[in-house]
């Protein structure tokens, strides 16, 4: 199970890569492992506004349909257009080609609420117990 140290994490198992005023968002290795084979992804439109902790999309696996929650508030400036055709990318490369959306942040202070890699790894370990 991977927990890259340059990323921030949420309790809903999203990861966030902060670069200046933008954030790239995906689901974690643990999330894809729990979901199993992912067969469908529903993405927001570029330009949509998202609010921290609100659902912005859906991932559907053979076992479950789950909402994806926005880790931070902002505007969607890019979506991973390859995902609808290749949803298995979320399983194969959750931290790379499986990225989901890029957000232009409206409230960078919210970053303080996210977990570090070590904190998230601890959180997952507790959830597994």
């Amino acid at each position, binding site marked *: 199970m991977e927990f890259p140290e340059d990323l921030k994490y949420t309790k809903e198992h999203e990861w966030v890569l902060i670069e200046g005023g933008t954030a790239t968002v995906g689901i974690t290795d643990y999330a894809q492992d729990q979901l199993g084979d992912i067969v*469908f992804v*529903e993405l927001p439109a570029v330009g949509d506004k998202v609010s921290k902790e609100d659902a912005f999309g859906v991932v*559907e*696996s*053979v*076992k*479950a*349909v789950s*909402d994806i929650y926005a880790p931070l508030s902002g505007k969607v400036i890019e979506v991973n257009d390859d995902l609808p055709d290749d949803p298995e990318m979320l399983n194969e490369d959750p931290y790379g080609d499986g990225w989901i959306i890029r957000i232009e942040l409206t409230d960078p202070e919210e970053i303080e609420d996210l977990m570090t890699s070590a904190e998230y790894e601890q959180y997952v370990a507790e959830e597994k117990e």
Partner: protein
Amino acid sequence: MRFIPHTADDIRAMLDTVGVASVDDLLADVPADLRARAGIDLAPGRSEAAVCAAVNALAAHNLAAPERCFLGAGAYPHFVPAVVDQVLQRAEFYSAYTPYQPEVSQGTLQAVFEFQSLVAMLLGMEVANASMYDGASATAEAVLMALRLAAGRPRVVLARALHPQYRDVVTTYAAGALGIDLVEAPFGADGRTDLERLAGLVDERTAAVVVGYPNVFGVVEELAAVADLAHGRGALLVTATAEPLALGVLKPPGAFGADIAVAEGQSLGIPVSYGGPGVGLFATRNAFVRAMPGRLVGEAQDGAGRRGYVLTLATREQHIRREKATSNICTNHGLMALAVTVFLCAVGQRGLHDLASANLANAHRAAARLDATGRWRRRFAGPFFNEFVVHGAPAEAAWEAAQQRGVIAGWPLGRWYPELSDSLLVCVTEVHDEAAVGRLVEALG
């Protein structure tokens, strides 16, 4: 499976556990004047033979013979081949419950898959679900689906010539969801939806336009024009077909670009039996399949590569996704869907066309004969299939008089449309031969 009710000991144990002395004590909160104090007033028991005789005597009062009944208006008298009931009554189908387990339900699942395939063909659409309750609730589900697909567009335009009971069910469903703007598009002098008035109602806030095909007057709407109008403003086209046999001679709604096509399946192998049960047919485009309500059976392969059938997209259903489920429908009308499947397979594509052609011919001959009386005239000039509207005499009185003569002369439309109180909606199918139509003409004379 045997049903074993609670024993007296079971009941005693349960009462003791919750701490009350009797079952009546559980009802203490129900005001006394609302309770049946002396039990329920039922006549004493009678023998089976006596009950049969009493019920048969009641049934003898019916004007039930199909060749004396010209009532359509949403439920249509048609011949049902014996093979339909024969297959339906096989215990494997008759008693089977929802097929959650593909390993023990391949027969049921395959039948549902065949049903879906037939419905998709009939409606000219890419994908159909495992069925809904009836045509009216399928229409309401189509409206909710259109609102899901067109997020932020609250308006739905319903044709006034859409079956009024379908409109009522849509209105009921809409009442449970806040902010839906239902508006009604009037019909023109030819019985079809008035396109000019419709254009004035469809705006950039409109999620869908819903029309009957044929509509409640039996008239065939100009679907191509309605589709252009809806799509031109970014709205979806929903068609609702109460008499699906019409699709044996009409182009299917999918050919006109319908986005969601629904129908009542009763005409295809299900007797009218006092108006139910029916079965809802529901079809749409592949692109919309994840917004589609109800169940879906897919064809798949098992571990050894053999063909098999399995419920698919079940992860979107209520028992898994709870309040975020696509719809409230976690089931289907399995037995009625099977009746439709057997019926369509028995008559075949050619047979369906021939049967529809016979309906068309009989109805048009009957309309001409009524016209020739000079007392009744066709009310609408729009093209029709097996149902049409005539006007002339005060319709309610004429209808009552015909009933005295042993004929149910259609449906007095004033009960649904005050502006049509001089009109009767008359349905003529393959069960009405020349002699039957003669009785109708005479009874209305």
